[in-house]
């Protein structure tokens, strides 16, 4: 993300349809997928199609894994610690599977929940990425679509500007 101010061009486009056309043209002109960032205030299905088939299975597995971690933590918390400290239960068994099982159930859910949160924050790049500049932010909030392009060379910059000019976009 170096030299943002020199290399990054952000266009505010009025409608998702125009943004779609603009990005299509940018791809045709040779811009790489990673260099183009679209930002909007609602999910735009047209741009999200590429994600649908891929990562779905991975996330579910991770969440299930989180559930197992929760179960493990529950067993450690209830069974192992109680046995290790030689809990004096006064005649009751130290470990009661059905009762401790309820706690295992709850911590499985908690593990899955926390894993979902962590992988979402991580994969969405939240906490790591910078938010848009205030003008762009305001435009997005009003329903426009922002398209940011990384232009390493002067030529690519003018190409991008030309494409954006066609949709009557404001460029920063």
């Amino acid at each position, binding site marked *: 993300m170096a030299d943002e101010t020199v290399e990054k061009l952000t266009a505010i486009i009025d409608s998702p349809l125009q943004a779609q056309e603009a990005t299509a043209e940018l791809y045709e002109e040779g811009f790489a997928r990673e260099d183009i960032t679209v930002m909007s205030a609602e999910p735009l299905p047209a741009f*999200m199609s590429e994600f649908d088939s891929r990562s779905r299975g991975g996330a579910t597995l991770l969440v299930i894994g989180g559930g197992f971690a929760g179960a493990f933590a529950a067993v450690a918390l209830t069974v192992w610690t109680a046995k290790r400290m030689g809990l004096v239960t006064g005649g009751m068994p130290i470990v009661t599977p059905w009762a401790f099982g309820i706690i295992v159930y709850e*911590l499985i859910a908690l593990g899955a929940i926390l894993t979902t949160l962590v992988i979402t924050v991580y994969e969405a790049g939240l906490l790591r990425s910078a938010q848009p500049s205030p003008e762009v932010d305001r435009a997005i909030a009003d329903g426009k679509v922002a398209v940011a392009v990384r232009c390493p060379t002067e030529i690519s910059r003018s190409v991008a500007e030309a494409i954006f000019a066609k949709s009557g976009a404001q460029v920063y």
Partner: protein
Amino acid sequence: MIAGGMNDAASINTDLLRSVFRTGKWWYLTVLIAGSVMLAAGAAFLYQAYVGIAVAGINRPVYWAFYITNFVFWIGISHAGTLISAILRVTGAEWRRPITRCAEAITVFALMIGALFPIIHLGRPWLFYWLVPYPSERGLWPNFRSPLAWDFFAINTYLTGSIIYLYLPLIPDLAMLRAKSKGIRRRIYSLLSLGWSGTPLQWHRLERAVRIMAVIIIPVAVSVHTIVSWDFAMAIQPMWHSTIFGPYFVVGAIFSGIAALIVAMAILRKVFHLEAYLKPVHFNNLGLLLLTMSLLWFYFTFSEYLTGYYGNEPAEMQIFWSKVSGPYSPLFWAMVVCCFIIPVPILAFKKLRTITGTLIASTGIVIGMWLERFLIIVPTLAAPRLTFNWGHYRPTWVEILITIGTVAYFIFLYAVFTKLFPIVAVWEYKEGIRPPHTSMEPTQSEATAAVSAD
């Protein structure tokens, strides 16, 4: 007033963010009154902690009364969010969009308040942390056999899950608020929105997370109220020791939760002028769900009492009659009227299932369900097996004040919430109403039939 700007993002923003950016004098008044009552209740609690439970109406044999009633009641109310947000999301019901956040907020606040009561009712409340498993000098661990220990884990899991479930869909709206505010507010929203910019990857991950959470939170919610019901069902007292309590309480919780949601929605609609967003159709659909739950509730209650009556066990029958025709009968029949007799006709006929109609039904149901919890707890405790020890219960000002104080606390939290965040999920609402000509895919349901850029 709103009709012309329905599809205009800017005007939707104005409508839905109005509560955040403009404060009327009624808001200040509400917060002031609710805050004062809340503080008075807090003082009452401190007084009780100092003098002892003697200042409450609790006695031998009625060792649990108002506080535990409130505990179960608020945990029950918290099932509103789960039903609306999670089940309706999972089933793809589009009409849920304007009401998800309102419901999720109810869940979080109701849980927070419900979780206070196990502390309030303790004889030595300053030692409540002994329920937490931590290495202590006492060489002890909590007794995981106790339903109260299960309560601790269940409620904390549900609370954590609900807060995350409320927070995740809030992030895009926090970004919007960040864009539109200045100064210290902007900094806070920036922090809370975690740098959200709204890229397609972020949207995809967020929606996926919400989908996964919706699936996880439903079994958690079911287990939470089941475990709360087991505080009673696991005891051997007559009319408590019943296997029906698990499902009975879950049904009752969803029932009271939807009713509370309708009441909250009706108030928000009026106060924040959201007539175009919280429409009669929402109240109609929720009203239908409420009707179903009312019938289910009646089914469970009828089963519970019929089997007790038919079994004719002396200890149980004493309690049965004390509720049906004895000292508790006014409350019992008020409960039946509030939960079944009044709501069912109102909700069954479309002509009556208006916003006002559902509001009346829901208010009655909220009161009736509070009575139901009270009637489960107190009559059983007042009539122990050894009849020499029968007692009675009368609440004192401390219990009444704390009860009212927690309602005030709920209102306070909700008022603060509406001031900080939009009560209708703006992005989710817009996603649902996107007209065909502004996007490649006409509707959300066809989004999976991907059309890539050509």
